[in-house]
């Protein structure tokens, strides 16, 4: 009975969201009654929809296996936490959650935005229309409310053991929050274009919402990277997997967007860029949803599927994107500013980096699309791998970092003037060169790009330390969160450079009680245990690892075989030190009784995630400080 109610509530709220869209676009938006009506309709519709989702969660927790989706993805023996997370472990439920998040963003926007805000009604209209599109997709092609007749299974299925991981339970929701968060920026820019009044300043407000969405997106991507590292046993932080790429593209666009916003919220220049980017960010987020859910690309992320879903999503996304671009084209004149960008001003550097980011997005898109186009024409499968992306990303990112560095000293609407003798750049470049020389001889690095990354990263970090000094000691006004975020960027490129250059791995073939040396560590295969877990059997290898100084620690990589599907998973063993991870996985046993183990030394990999955390925290605090300034 409850499931039918949930189903009904979702249908009802779809209708109401559609009404909300109609009200906001067909009635005059200057009438306060209309704005009230739109706002109320939206919040009621939202409440019905959330209630529907809560009923669904309740059914999942209480093992109602009459519901086909719950029966397929949950099991009576799972802990409650995984019963809930099983909702988003496959297509239908994760789509459900995705729409819940979409409407939550709208509801929060609706709640905190005053009815006097001139774009409010239409923004909510756009959010409602987007929600309707996805709700129809859910109801028509991926219905999570379907019921098994006549006999429901008693115990349910077992969710994929790889997915039974606390991190994975939170990685998709964070990513979805980020993806759909840009609906506010998208809604506001469409509302702005529809209204067509160039005097309306929407950028300031959008900055707050977009920074929060950007922080979620960054967090989602970082969590995914961390999960692949320790749970999937991939042994690295980034693999240029197509699905990673479709998450990276909106992130790049969003990063360009929040920078562009800070320019156009001060003056009206770069408005064309900002508007186009706001459409691009959301379109790329939707494109990601299309790629993953249509099953066009095989990957760990893809869902079992049918082509109708792909077609529906393509049609809906195509409609949204092409309509927005037509509107953009039609209203082009109100976006054009007659102010020119002063050369070597802060704006000019941000515009250059917009172009560079555009290049990165375009190249990533090319990498994703090329195999598809090739397959379409020649009917052969090829893949585009890391060498392609590295060749493009490394130089362009470093170039963008250099322009970013110059923008530190530059001012809004003024030519950059550097007094070489007073500017800390001299000291920071000397310090950076010293670090590069130290690293070069200490770690014996000769690769140009690695050294260049360390140099540029150090320039950024040391230069910003002076800015922080000015801020703390001389009380000079500055945007402190922007500084911490960019220090994160500096750390990121250094860590990636060093990780790429220093990390090494080796497969060992080893008998019990034997030992072997690798990278100045002695690995002794001490013991092999067979252990029974709650729903799996596993073999655990105990290794005693000894470093040169004689410090010992134990690493116990594990291999599990789950009862229900016979699936085999590897559990990595990781020893964490500040500068490197020692990472072990076990493979198969050979005929002579020896085991294959894989040992990796991953240098500075923690620093990559640490820099992401720094950026996320900066993003959230910056958004918070903006909201305080506003009120």
């Amino acid at each position: 009975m409850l499931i039918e109610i949930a189903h009904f509530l979702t249908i009802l709220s779809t209708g109401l969201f559609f009404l909300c869209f109609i009200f906001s676009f067909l009635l005059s938006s200057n009438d306060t009654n209309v704005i009230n009506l739109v706002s109320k309709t939206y919040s009621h519709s939202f409440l019905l929809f959330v209630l529907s989702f809560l009923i669904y969660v309740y059914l999942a927790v209480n093992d109602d296996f009459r519901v086909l989706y719950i029966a397929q993805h949950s099991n009576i023996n799972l802990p409650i936490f995984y019963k809930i997370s099983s909702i988003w472990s496959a297509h239908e439920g994760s789509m459900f959650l995705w729409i819940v998040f979409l409407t939550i963003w709208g509801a929060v926007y609706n709640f905190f935005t005053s009815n006097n805000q001139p774009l409010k009604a239409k923004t909510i209209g756009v959010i409602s229309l987007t929600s309707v599109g996805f709700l129809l997709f859910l109801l028509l092609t991926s219905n999570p409310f379907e019921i098994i007749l006549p006999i429901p299974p008693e115990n349910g299925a077992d969710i994929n053991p790889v997915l039974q991981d606390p991190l994975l339970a939170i990685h998709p929701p964070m990513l979805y929050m980020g993806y759909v968060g840009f609906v506010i920026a998208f809604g506001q820019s469409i509302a702005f274009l529809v209204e067509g009044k160039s005097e309306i300043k929407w950028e300031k407000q959008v900055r707050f919402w977009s920074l929060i969405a950007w922080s979620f997106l960054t967090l989602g991507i970082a969590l995914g990277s961390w999960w692949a590292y320790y749970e999937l046993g991939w042994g690295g932080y980034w693999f240029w997997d197509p699905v990673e790429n479709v998450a990276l593209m909106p992130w790049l666009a969003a990063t360009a967007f929040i920078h562009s916003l800070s320019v156009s919220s001060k003056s009206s220049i770069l408005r064309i860029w900002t508007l186009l980017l706001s459409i691009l960010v959301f379109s790329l987020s939707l494109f990601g949803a299309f790629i993953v859910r249509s099953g066009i690309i095989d990957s760990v992320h893809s869902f079992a599927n049918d082509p109708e879903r792909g077609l529906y999503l393509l049609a809906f996304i195509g409609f949204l994107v092409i309509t927005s671009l037509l509107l953009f084209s039609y209203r082009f004149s109100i976006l054009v500013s007659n102010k020119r960008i002063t050369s070597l001003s802060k704006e000019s550097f941000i515009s250059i980096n917009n172009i560079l980011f555009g290049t990165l997005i375009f190249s990533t898109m090319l990498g994703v699309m090329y195999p598809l186009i090739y397959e379409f024409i020649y009917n052969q499968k090829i893949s585009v791998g890391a060498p392609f992306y590295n060749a493009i990303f490394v130089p362009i990112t470093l170039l963008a970092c250099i322009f970013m560095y110059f923008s530190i000293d530059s001012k809004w609407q003024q030519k950059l003037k550097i007094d070489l003798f007073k500017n800390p750049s001299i000291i920071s470049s000397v310090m950076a060169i010293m670090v590069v020389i130290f690293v070069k001889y200490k770690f014996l690095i000769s690769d140009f790009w690695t050294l260049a990354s360390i140099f540029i990263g150090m320039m950024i970090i040391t230069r910003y330390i002076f800015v922080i000094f000015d801020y703390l000691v001389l009380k000079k006004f500055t945007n402190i969160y922007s500084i911490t975020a960019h220090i994160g960027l500096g750390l990121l490129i250094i860590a990636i450079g060093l990780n790429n250059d220093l990390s090494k791995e080796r497969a060992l073939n080893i008998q019990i009680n034997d030992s072997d040396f690798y990278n100045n560590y002695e690995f002794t295969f001490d013991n092999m245990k067979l252990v029974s877990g709650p729903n799996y059997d596993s073999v655990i290898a105990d290794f005693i690892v000894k470093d040169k100084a004689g410090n010992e620690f134990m690493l116990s990589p594990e291999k599990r075989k789950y009862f229900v599907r016979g699936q085999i998973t590897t559990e990595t063993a990781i020893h964490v030190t500040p500068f490197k991870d020692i990472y072990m996985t076990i493979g198969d046993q050979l005929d002579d009784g020896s085991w294959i183990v894989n040992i990796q030394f991953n240098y500075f990999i923690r620093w990559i995630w640490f820099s992401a955390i720094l950026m996320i925290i900066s993003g959230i605090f910056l958004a918070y400080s903006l909201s305080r300034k506003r009120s």
Partner: protein
Amino acid sequence: MTFLLRALILGLTLLFFTFFYLYINEDKYYPGADFQTSDMPKFELYDLYSEKVINQDNLDGTFLINVWASWCITCRVEHGFLVNLSNQNIPIIGLNYKDEKENAIEWIERFGDPYKFIIHDLKGELALDLGVTGAPETFLVSNGTLIAHYRGEVNDMIWKDVFMPIIKKEGLFKND
């Protein structure tokens, strides 16, 4: 200049969506489908009921192999369609995959038996040789050659769009 820019942005976007439209509408776009032919692997396994040994020589003519298990919920959804197919005289051989014998038999008793016979593959040996990654999966086999492989639930639509074209092309199941 600005006109060119606008036209370029719109044109590229249209091209982009047109490409994906064409890509999706192409026949080969069924992510679970695979039409690479290969020989039926050799095997020796027991019949689920009689425990009689079955090997590749016991299979002849044209038939489907359906990989299923009692723990697989999608198989339950698919089952009704398979019963329909077997009523239309399409021979289906079941490959019971990584499943306990009792559970499998109980399941068949409960939901009906569309299979000519069922091979019990407890360890997934034949399934491994066939390239099975999970259940359900369905193969079309003709005279010792695998000619189509579908990963996932076979239903009316999949049968019409994936299996029927190749069945018509090869002129299979005509004698029945």
